[in-house]
Protein backbone atom coordinates (compact mmCIF):
# COMPACT_ATOMS: atom_id res chain seq x y z
CA UNK A 1 0.00 0.00 0.00
CA UNK A 2 2.00 2.93 -1.32
CA UNK A 3 0.17 5.94 0.06
CA UNK A 4 2.94 8.43 -0.72
CA UNK A 5 2.70 7.92 -4.45
CA UNK A 6 -1.09 8.26 -4.32
CA UNK A 7 -0.82 11.47 -2.31
CA UNK A 8 1.81 12.93 -4.61
CA UNK A 9 -0.06 11.98 -7.72
CA UNK A 10 -3.22 13.58 -6.37
CA UNK A 11 -1.34 16.84 -5.72
CA UNK A 12 0.15 16.73 -9.17
CA UNK A 13 -3.18 16.07 -10.86
CA UNK A 14 -4.87 18.91 -8.98
CA UNK A 15 -2.81 21.35 -11.02
CA UNK A 16 -3.33 19.61 -14.32
CA UNK A 17 -7.05 19.00 -13.87
CA UNK A 18 -8.47 21.94 -11.91
CA UNK A 19 -12.04 20.67 -12.36
CA UNK A 20 -11.21 17.69 -10.13
CA UNK A 21 -9.64 19.70 -7.30
CA UNK A 22 -12.47 19.21 -4.86
CA UNK A 23 -12.55 15.43 -5.32
CA UNK A 24 -8.79 15.10 -5.16
CA UNK A 25 -8.84 17.17 -1.97
CA UNK A 26 -11.29 14.75 -0.34
CA UNK A 27 -9.23 11.83 -1.65
CA UNK A 28 -6.01 13.18 -0.11
CA UNK A 29 -7.82 13.78 3.19
CA UNK A 30 -9.01 10.14 3.20
CA UNK A 31 -5.53 8.87 2.26
CA UNK A 32 -4.13 10.72 5.29
CA UNK A 33 -6.53 8.74 7.47
CA UNK A 34 -5.38 5.53 5.78
CA UNK A 35 -1.83 6.50 6.66
CA UNK A 36 -2.76 6.39 10.36
CA UNK A 37 -3.21 2.63 10.00
CA UNK A 38 0.58 2.29 9.76
CA UNK A 39 1.57 -1.31 10.29
CA UNK A 40 -1.41 -2.35 12.33
CA UNK A 41 -3.09 -5.50 11.04
CA UNK A 42 -6.86 -5.51 11.60
CA UNK A 43 -8.67 -8.69 12.69
CA UNK A 44 -10.23 -10.05 9.45
CA UNK A 45 -13.09 -11.76 11.30
CA UNK A 46 -14.32 -8.56 12.98
CA UNK A 47 -13.29 -5.98 10.47
CA UNK A 48 -16.49 -3.92 10.49
CA UNK A 49 -16.50 -3.25 14.22
CA UNK A 50 -12.74 -2.75 14.26
CA UNK A 51 -12.96 -0.17 11.47
CA UNK A 52 -15.96 1.46 13.14
CA UNK A 53 -13.73 2.13 16.10
CA UNK A 54 -10.36 2.80 14.47
CA UNK A 55 -11.11 4.32 11.06
CA UNK A 56 -14.56 5.89 11.29
CA UNK A 57 -13.76 8.89 13.55
CA UNK A 58 -10.81 9.90 11.35
CA UNK A 59 -12.81 9.49 8.14
CA UNK A 60 -15.70 11.55 9.47
CA UNK A 61 -13.35 14.30 10.62
CA UNK A 62 -11.49 14.37 7.30
CA UNK A 63 -14.73 14.40 5.33
CA UNK A 64 -16.12 17.25 7.40
CA UNK A 65 -12.98 19.23 6.74
CA UNK A 66 -12.57 18.56 3.02
CA UNK A 67 -15.83 17.39 1.46
CA UNK A 68 -18.73 19.43 0.09
CA UNK A 69 -21.48 20.02 2.60
CA UNK A 70 -23.98 17.32 1.53
CA UNK A 71 -21.35 14.60 1.82
CA UNK A 72 -19.94 16.01 5.06
CA UNK A 73 -23.41 16.21 6.62
CA UNK A 74 -24.46 12.76 5.43
CA UNK A 75 -21.27 11.18 6.73
CA UNK A 76 -21.62 12.95 10.06
CA UNK A 77 -25.26 11.86 10.41
CA UNK A 78 -24.45 8.29 9.49
CA UNK A 79 -21.70 8.12 12.09
CA UNK A 80 -24.02 9.48 14.78
CA UNK A 81 -26.97 7.31 13.82
CA UNK A 82 -25.30 4.25 15.33
CA UNK A 83 -25.74 2.43 12.01
CA UNK A 84 -22.19 2.92 10.82
CA UNK A 85 -20.87 -0.53 11.75
CA UNK A 86 -23.94 -2.09 10.15
CA UNK A 87 -23.19 -0.14 6.94
CA UNK A 88 -19.56 -1.26 6.99
CA UNK A 89 -20.62 -4.88 7.49
CA UNK A 90 -23.11 -4.46 4.64
CA UNK A 91 -20.32 -3.33 2.32
CA UNK A 92 -18.22 -6.36 3.28
CA UNK A 93 -21.21 -8.61 2.59
CA UNK A 94 -21.85 -7.13 -0.84
CA UNK A 95 -25.14 -5.41 0.04
CA UNK A 96 -26.63 -2.50 -1.90
CA UNK A 97 -25.86 0.80 -0.21
CA UNK A 98 -26.74 4.44 -0.81
CA UNK A 99 -24.05 6.72 -2.27
CA UNK A 100 -23.05 8.31 1.06
CA UNK A 101 -23.06 4.94 2.82
CA UNK A 102 -20.85 3.56 0.08
CA UNK A 103 -18.44 6.45 0.46
CA UNK A 104 -18.22 5.96 4.20
CA UNK A 105 -17.76 2.20 3.92
CA UNK A 106 -15.06 2.44 1.30
CA UNK A 107 -13.19 5.25 3.02
CA UNK A 108 -13.17 3.20 6.24
CA UNK A 109 -12.48 -0.23 4.77
CA UNK A 110 -10.28 -0.01 1.69
CA UNK A 111 -7.01 0.53 3.56
CA UNK A 112 -7.60 -2.22 6.16
CA UNK A 113 -8.64 -4.63 3.37
CA UNK A 114 -5.53 -3.74 1.38
CA UNK A 115 -3.40 -4.32 4.45
CA UNK A 116 -5.02 -7.71 5.00
CA UNK A 117 -4.03 -8.93 1.51
CA UNK A 118 -5.20 -12.59 1.09
CA UNK A 119 -7.05 -12.31 4.38
CA UNK A 120 -9.42 -9.80 2.74
CA UNK A 121 -11.31 -12.88 1.59
CA UNK A 122 -11.97 -13.85 5.20
CA UNK A 123 -13.20 -10.34 5.99
CA UNK A 124 -15.67 -10.58 3.08
CA UNK A 125 -16.74 -14.17 3.75
CA UNK A 126 -20.37 -13.06 4.13
CA UNK A 127 -20.46 -11.97 0.46
CA UNK A 128 -21.90 -14.84 -1.62
CA UNK A 129 -20.38 -13.46 -4.87
CA UNK A 130 -18.15 -15.90 -6.77
CA UNK A 131 -14.36 -15.51 -6.64
CA UNK A 132 -12.37 -15.11 -9.84
CA UNK A 133 -13.28 -14.23 -13.43
CA UNK A 134 -15.17 -10.96 -13.41
CA UNK A 135 -15.06 -10.85 -9.61
CA UNK A 136 -12.06 -10.20 -7.42
CA UNK A 137 -10.37 -13.55 -6.76
CA UNK A 138 -9.65 -12.45 -3.18
CA UNK A 139 -12.86 -10.92 -1.90
CA UNK A 140 -15.45 -11.38 -4.67
CA UNK A 141 -15.81 -7.62 -5.17
CA UNK A 142 -16.58 -6.05 -8.54
CA UNK A 143 -13.98 -4.21 -10.60
CA UNK A 144 -13.60 -0.47 -10.19
CA UNK A 145 -11.16 0.26 -12.97
CA UNK A 146 -9.21 -1.31 -15.77
CA UNK A 147 -5.44 -0.96 -15.91
CA UNK A 148 -3.04 -1.54 -18.80
CA UNK A 149 0.45 -2.42 -17.70
CA UNK A 150 3.21 -0.10 -18.81
CA UNK A 151 6.15 -1.27 -20.90
CA UNK A 152 9.54 0.18 -21.78
CA UNK A 153 8.83 -0.46 -25.43
CA UNK A 154 6.30 1.83 -27.12
CA UNK A 155 5.31 -0.98 -29.48
CA UNK A 156 4.05 -3.19 -26.66
CA UNK A 157 0.45 -3.13 -25.50
CA UNK A 158 0.38 -4.11 -21.85
CA UNK A 159 -1.87 -6.80 -20.43
CA UNK A 160 -5.07 -5.80 -18.73
CA UNK A 161 -5.71 -5.97 -15.02
CA UNK A 162 -8.87 -5.14 -13.16
CA UNK A 163 -8.72 -3.49 -9.77
CA UNK A 164 -11.19 -4.48 -7.06
CA UNK A 165 -13.55 -1.77 -5.81
CA UNK A 166 -13.47 -3.24 -2.33
CA UNK A 167 -9.97 -4.47 -1.52
CA UNK A 168 -7.99 -2.83 -4.39
CA UNK A 169 -6.47 -6.20 -5.32
CA UNK A 170 -5.55 -6.43 -9.01
CA UNK A 171 -6.11 -9.44 -11.22
CA UNK A 172 -5.50 -10.26 -14.83
CA UNK A 173 -8.47 -10.20 -17.19
CA UNK A 174 -8.84 -10.55 -20.96
CA UNK A 175 -8.30 -7.24 -22.73
CA UNK A 176 -10.96 -8.07 -25.29
CA UNK A 177 -13.83 -9.13 -23.03
CA UNK A 178 -16.31 -6.98 -21.14
CA UNK A 179 -15.39 -6.88 -17.43
CA UNK A 180 -19.06 -6.78 -16.54
CA UNK A 181 -20.79 -9.42 -18.71
CA UNK A 182 -17.91 -11.14 -20.48
CA UNK A 183 -19.02 -10.06 -23.98
CA UNK A 184 -16.15 -10.67 -26.40
CA UNK A 185 -17.67 -9.77 -29.77
CA UNK A 186 -15.59 -6.82 -30.96
CA UNK A 187 -18.54 -5.04 -32.55
CA UNK A 188 -20.38 -4.99 -29.21
CA UNK A 189 -17.50 -3.34 -27.41
CA UNK A 190 -16.61 0.31 -27.89
CA UNK A 191 -13.65 2.24 -26.64
CA UNK A 192 -14.39 5.95 -26.31
CA UNK A 193 -11.36 8.16 -26.16
CA UNK A 194 -10.39 11.70 -26.85
CA UNK A 195 -9.91 12.20 -30.56
CA UNK A 196 -6.33 12.01 -31.71
CA UNK A 197 -5.43 13.82 -34.90
CA UNK A 198 -3.96 11.36 -37.37
CA UNK A 199 -3.34 7.64 -37.03
CA UNK A 200 -1.82 6.23 -33.85
CA UNK A 201 1.18 3.99 -34.42
CA UNK A 202 3.15 3.65 -31.20
CA UNK A 203 2.17 4.24 -27.58
CA UNK A 204 4.59 7.05 -26.83
CA UNK A 205 3.22 10.56 -26.58
CA UNK A 206 3.85 12.16 -29.94
CA UNK A 207 3.16 15.75 -29.06
CA UNK A 208 -0.61 15.21 -29.08
CA UNK A 209 -2.64 17.78 -27.19
CA UNK A 210 -5.09 15.43 -25.54
CA UNK A 211 -6.00 16.08 -21.94
CA UNK A 212 -6.85 12.43 -21.34
CA UNK A 213 -4.33 10.61 -23.52
CA UNK A 214 -3.98 7.71 -21.06
CA UNK A 215 -7.63 7.45 -20.09
CA UNK A 216 -10.46 5.91 -22.06
CA UNK A 217 -13.95 4.49 -21.60
CA UNK A 218 -14.11 0.72 -22.11
CA UNK A 219 -17.80 0.22 -22.85
CA UNK A 220 -20.06 -2.70 -23.72
CA UNK A 221 -23.23 -2.44 -25.80
CA UNK A 222 -24.55 -5.74 -24.45
CA UNK A 223 -24.75 -4.74 -20.79
CA UNK A 224 -24.45 -0.92 -21.13
CA UNK A 225 -21.67 -0.90 -18.57
CA UNK A 226 -18.24 0.67 -18.68
CA UNK A 227 -14.99 1.07 -16.81
CA UNK A 228 -12.36 3.76 -17.11
CA UNK A 229 -9.19 2.27 -18.54
CA UNK A 230 -5.89 3.73 -17.32
CA UNK A 231 -3.03 3.02 -19.72
CA UNK A 232 0.30 3.13 -17.89
CA UNK A 233 1.99 2.62 -21.24
CA UNK A 234 0.87 6.11 -22.22
CA UNK A 235 1.65 7.75 -18.87
CA UNK A 236 4.21 5.88 -16.84
CA UNK A 237 3.59 8.10 -13.79
CA UNK A 238 -0.09 7.25 -13.62
CA UNK A 239 -1.37 5.92 -10.30
CA UNK A 240 -4.52 4.27 -11.66
CA UNK A 241 -6.73 4.70 -8.63
CA UNK A 242 -5.97 8.44 -8.51
CA UNK A 243 -5.96 9.06 -12.24
CA UNK A 244 -9.36 7.46 -12.54
CA UNK A 245 -10.81 10.28 -10.42
CA UNK A 246 -9.85 12.90 -13.01
CA UNK A 247 -11.65 11.01 -15.78
CA UNK A 248 -14.73 12.87 -14.53
CA UNK A 249 -15.58 14.52 -17.90
CA UNK A 250 -15.31 11.08 -19.53
CA UNK A 251 -17.70 9.72 -16.89
CA UNK A 252 -20.14 12.51 -17.69
CA UNK A 253 -19.83 11.66 -21.36
CA UNK A 254 -20.42 7.96 -20.67
CA UNK A 255 -23.52 8.76 -18.65
CA UNK A 256 -24.80 10.81 -21.57
CA UNK A 257 -24.38 7.73 -23.77
CA UNK A 258 -26.59 5.79 -21.36
CA UNK A 259 -23.70 3.86 -19.86
CA UNK A 260 -23.14 3.22 -16.17
CA UNK A 261 -19.90 2.25 -14.50
CA UNK A 262 -19.52 -1.33 -13.27
CA UNK A 263 -18.79 0.16 -9.83
CA UNK A 264 -18.66 3.90 -9.15
CA UNK A 265 -15.41 5.17 -7.66
CA UNK A 266 -14.97 6.43 -4.10
CA UNK A 267 -16.42 9.82 -5.06
CA UNK A 268 -19.56 8.25 -6.50
CA UNK A 269 -18.67 8.43 -10.19
Amino acid at each position, binding site marked *: MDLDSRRQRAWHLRERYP*FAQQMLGVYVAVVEVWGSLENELPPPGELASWAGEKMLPGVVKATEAAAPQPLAVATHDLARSGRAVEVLAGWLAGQELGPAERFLARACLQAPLEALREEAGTACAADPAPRGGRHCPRCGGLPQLSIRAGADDPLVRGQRQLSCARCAHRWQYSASSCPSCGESTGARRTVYA*EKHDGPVVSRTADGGTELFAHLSIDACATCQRYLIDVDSGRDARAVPEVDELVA*LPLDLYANEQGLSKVTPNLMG*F
Partner: protein
Amino acid sequence: MSEVEVSRRQFLQIGAAGTGVLGGLSPLGFDLTQAITVKQKLRIEGATVSHSVCPYCAVGCALLAYTKKNADGKVELLQIEGDPDSPVNEGRLCPKGASALQLAVSRRRVPSPMYREPGAKEWKTVSWDFALDRLARNIKASRDRTFVTTDANGNLVNRCEGIAFAGGAAFSSEEGYLATKLMRSLGYVYLEQQARV
Protein backbone atom coordinates in the same frame (compact mmCIF):
# COMPACT_ATOMS: atom_id res chain seq x y z
CA MET B 1 -24.70 25.07 -0.87
CA SER B 2 -23.14 26.55 2.25
CA GLU B 3 -26.10 26.43 4.65
CA VAL B 4 -28.12 23.68 3.08
CA GLU B 5 -29.11 20.85 5.36
CA VAL B 6 -29.63 17.55 3.62
CA SER B 7 -31.18 14.77 5.64
CA ARG B 8 -30.11 11.20 5.07
CA ARG B 9 -33.46 10.42 3.50
CA GLN B 10 -33.27 13.35 1.08
CA PHE B 11 -29.71 12.42 0.45
CA LEU B 12 -30.48 8.87 -0.59
CA GLN B 13 -33.24 10.21 -2.80
CA ILE B 14 -30.75 12.43 -4.58
CA GLY B 15 -28.46 9.45 -4.82
CA ALA B 16 -31.19 7.39 -6.43
CA ALA B 17 -30.56 9.38 -9.58
CA GLY B 18 -27.32 7.40 -9.89
CA THR B 19 -24.52 9.66 -10.95
CA GLY B 20 -27.11 12.02 -12.39
CA VAL B 21 -26.17 15.66 -12.28
CA LEU B 22 -28.57 18.02 -10.55
CA GLY B 23 -27.93 21.73 -10.80
CA GLY B 24 -24.26 21.13 -11.53
CA LEU B 25 -23.82 19.08 -8.37
CA SER B 26 -23.08 15.38 -8.10
CA PRO B 27 -25.17 13.22 -5.74
CA LEU B 28 -22.44 13.59 -3.11
CA GLY B 29 -22.46 17.35 -3.56
CA PHE B 30 -19.36 17.82 -5.71
CA ASP B 31 -19.44 20.88 -7.93
CA LEU B 32 -19.35 19.66 -11.52
CA THR B 33 -19.65 22.98 -13.35
CA GLN B 34 -16.02 23.00 -14.54
CA ALA B 35 -16.03 19.32 -15.43
CA ILE B 36 -19.16 19.81 -17.53
CA THR B 37 -17.46 22.64 -19.43
CA VAL B 38 -14.42 20.44 -20.05
CA LYS B 39 -16.66 17.61 -21.24
CA GLN B 40 -18.48 19.90 -23.66
CA LYS B 41 -15.19 20.89 -25.28
CA LEU B 42 -13.84 17.35 -25.53
CA ARG B 43 -13.73 15.70 -28.92
CA ILE B 44 -14.49 12.09 -28.12
CA GLU B 45 -14.72 9.30 -30.63
CA GLY B 46 -15.82 5.73 -30.15
CA ALA B 47 -13.96 2.87 -31.79
CA THR B 48 -14.86 -0.78 -32.01
CA VAL B 49 -12.12 -3.34 -31.65
CA SER B 50 -11.57 -6.15 -34.17
CA HIS B 51 -9.12 -9.03 -34.09
CA SER B 52 -6.69 -9.51 -36.94
CA VAL B 53 -3.32 -11.02 -37.76
CA CYS B 54 -0.23 -9.20 -38.97
CA PRO B 55 0.31 -10.02 -42.65
CA TYR B 56 4.04 -9.48 -42.81
CA CYS B 57 5.84 -12.57 -41.58
CA ALA B 58 5.44 -16.15 -40.48
CA VAL B 59 5.32 -15.28 -36.77
CA GLY B 60 1.67 -14.35 -37.22
CA CYS B 61 1.35 -11.79 -34.44
CA ALA B 62 -2.21 -11.07 -33.29
CA LEU B 63 -3.46 -7.52 -33.82
CA LEU B 64 -6.26 -5.45 -32.43
CA ALA B 65 -7.64 -2.98 -34.96
CA TYR B 66 -9.63 0.06 -33.80
CA THR B 67 -12.15 1.23 -36.34
CA LYS B 68 -14.87 3.83 -36.49
CA LYS B 69 -17.86 4.10 -38.78
CA ASN B 70 -18.16 7.63 -40.15
CA ALA B 71 -21.39 9.45 -40.90
CA ASP B 72 -20.99 8.61 -44.60
CA GLY B 73 -20.94 4.91 -43.72
CA LYS B 74 -17.24 4.48 -44.47
CA VAL B 75 -15.17 2.60 -41.94
CA GLU B 76 -12.04 4.43 -40.82
CA LEU B 77 -9.07 2.61 -39.33
CA LEU B 78 -7.76 4.55 -36.34
CA GLN B 79 -5.17 2.37 -34.68
CA ILE B 80 -3.54 -1.04 -34.70
CA GLU B 81 -1.79 -2.61 -31.75
CA GLY B 82 -0.60 -5.98 -30.52
CA ASP B 83 -3.19 -8.14 -28.79
CA PRO B 84 -2.10 -8.51 -25.17
CA ASP B 85 -4.19 -11.69 -24.82
CA SER B 86 -2.42 -13.50 -27.67
CA PRO B 87 -0.01 -16.26 -26.61
CA VAL B 88 1.94 -15.60 -29.83
CA ASN B 89 3.02 -12.02 -29.22
CA GLU B 90 1.54 -10.99 -25.83
CA GLY B 91 0.80 -7.46 -27.00
CA ARG B 92 4.10 -7.00 -28.83
CA LEU B 93 4.63 -5.97 -32.43
CA CYS B 94 7.87 -5.48 -34.31
CA PRO B 95 8.28 -2.08 -36.02
CA LYS B 96 7.06 -3.54 -39.28
CA GLY B 97 3.90 -4.98 -37.78
CA ALA B 98 3.30 -1.82 -35.78
CA SER B 99 3.14 0.11 -39.03
CA ALA B 100 0.60 -2.30 -40.55
CA LEU B 101 -1.86 0.57 -40.22
CA GLN B 102 -0.14 2.18 -43.18
CA LEU B 103 -1.19 -0.68 -45.42
CA ALA B 104 -4.60 0.90 -45.22
CA VAL B 105 -4.09 4.58 -44.57
CA SER B 106 -0.64 5.67 -45.79
CA ARG B 107 -0.72 8.72 -48.02
CA ARG B 108 2.19 7.19 -49.95
CA ARG B 109 0.36 3.98 -50.73
CA VAL B 110 0.30 3.26 -54.49
CA PRO B 111 -3.38 2.93 -55.39
CA SER B 112 -3.08 1.57 -58.96
CA PRO B 113 -0.60 -0.46 -61.03
CA MET B 114 2.48 1.35 -62.38
CA TYR B 115 4.27 0.46 -65.58
CA ARG B 116 7.73 1.29 -66.93
CA GLU B 117 8.09 0.48 -70.61
CA PRO B 118 11.27 -1.21 -71.79
CA GLY B 119 13.89 1.52 -72.15
CA ALA B 120 11.74 4.19 -70.47
CA LYS B 121 12.90 6.17 -67.44
CA GLU B 122 9.51 7.12 -66.07
CA TRP B 123 6.82 5.06 -64.42
CA LYS B 124 3.30 5.68 -65.55
CA THR B 125 -0.07 4.79 -64.06
CA VAL B 126 -1.94 2.11 -65.98
CA SER B 127 -5.25 0.33 -65.59
CA TRP B 128 -5.63 -3.08 -63.95
CA ASP B 129 -6.83 -4.47 -67.29
CA PHE B 130 -3.65 -3.33 -68.96
CA ALA B 131 -1.46 -4.69 -66.17
CA LEU B 132 -3.15 -8.09 -66.00
CA ASP B 133 -3.12 -8.53 -69.80
CA ARG B 134 0.52 -7.60 -69.90
CA LEU B 135 1.40 -10.03 -67.09
CA ALA B 136 -0.53 -12.83 -68.76
CA ARG B 137 1.20 -12.24 -72.07
CA ASN B 138 4.65 -12.12 -70.48
CA ILE B 139 3.98 -15.29 -68.48
CA LYS B 140 2.81 -17.09 -71.61
CA ALA B 141 5.83 -15.93 -73.61
CA SER B 142 8.34 -16.98 -70.93
CA ARG B 143 6.58 -20.28 -70.37
CA ASP B 144 6.48 -21.11 -74.09
CA ARG B 145 10.14 -20.21 -74.40
CA THR B 146 11.40 -22.22 -71.40
CA PHE B 147 9.00 -25.18 -71.23
CA VAL B 148 10.81 -28.53 -70.96
CA THR B 149 8.94 -31.70 -71.95
CA THR B 150 11.69 -34.28 -71.36
CA ASP B 151 14.83 -34.17 -69.24
CA ALA B 152 18.37 -35.15 -70.30
CA ASN B 153 17.61 -38.84 -69.72
CA GLY B 154 14.54 -38.75 -71.88
CA ASN B 155 12.06 -38.82 -68.96
CA LEU B 156 8.76 -37.02 -69.50
CA VAL B 157 8.74 -33.97 -67.16
CA ASN B 158 6.51 -31.23 -68.71
CA ARG B 159 7.87 -28.37 -66.60
CA CYS B 160 8.55 -24.67 -66.90
CA GLU B 161 12.07 -23.76 -65.72
CA GLY B 162 11.98 -20.12 -66.72
CA ILE B 163 9.64 -18.75 -64.03
CA ALA B 164 9.85 -18.96 -60.26
CA PHE B 165 7.09 -18.17 -57.78
CA ALA B 166 7.61 -16.50 -54.41
CA GLY B 167 4.60 -16.43 -52.10
CA GLY B 168 4.28 -14.14 -49.11
CA ALA B 169 3.59 -14.22 -45.39
CA ALA B 170 0.34 -12.43 -46.11
CA PHE B 171 -1.02 -15.71 -47.45
CA SER B 172 -3.31 -17.77 -45.34
CA SER B 173 -2.95 -21.54 -45.64
CA GLU B 174 -5.87 -21.59 -48.07
CA GLU B 175 -4.37 -18.90 -50.27
CA GLY B 176 -1.04 -20.72 -50.15
CA TYR B 177 -2.74 -23.93 -51.26
CA LEU B 178 -4.50 -22.15 -54.11
CA ALA B 179 -1.31 -20.42 -55.27
CA THR B 180 0.63 -23.68 -55.24
CA LYS B 181 -2.12 -25.44 -57.20
CA LEU B 182 -2.15 -22.70 -59.82
CA MET B 183 1.63 -22.55 -60.19
CA ARG B 184 1.93 -26.33 -60.46
CA SER B 185 -0.75 -26.31 -63.17
CA LEU B 186 1.47 -23.94 -65.13
CA GLY B 187 4.33 -26.38 -64.65
CA TYR B 188 6.43 -24.28 -62.28
CA VAL B 189 8.86 -26.16 -60.10
CA TYR B 190 10.57 -23.29 -58.33
CA LEU B 191 8.07 -22.42 -55.62
CA GLU B 192 8.77 -20.66 -52.36
CA GLN B 193 6.01 -20.24 -49.84
CA GLN B 194 5.62 -18.69 -46.43
CA ALA B 195 1.97 -19.35 -45.86
CA ARG B 196 0.83 -19.77 -42.25
CA VAL B 197 -2.13 -19.15 -39.96
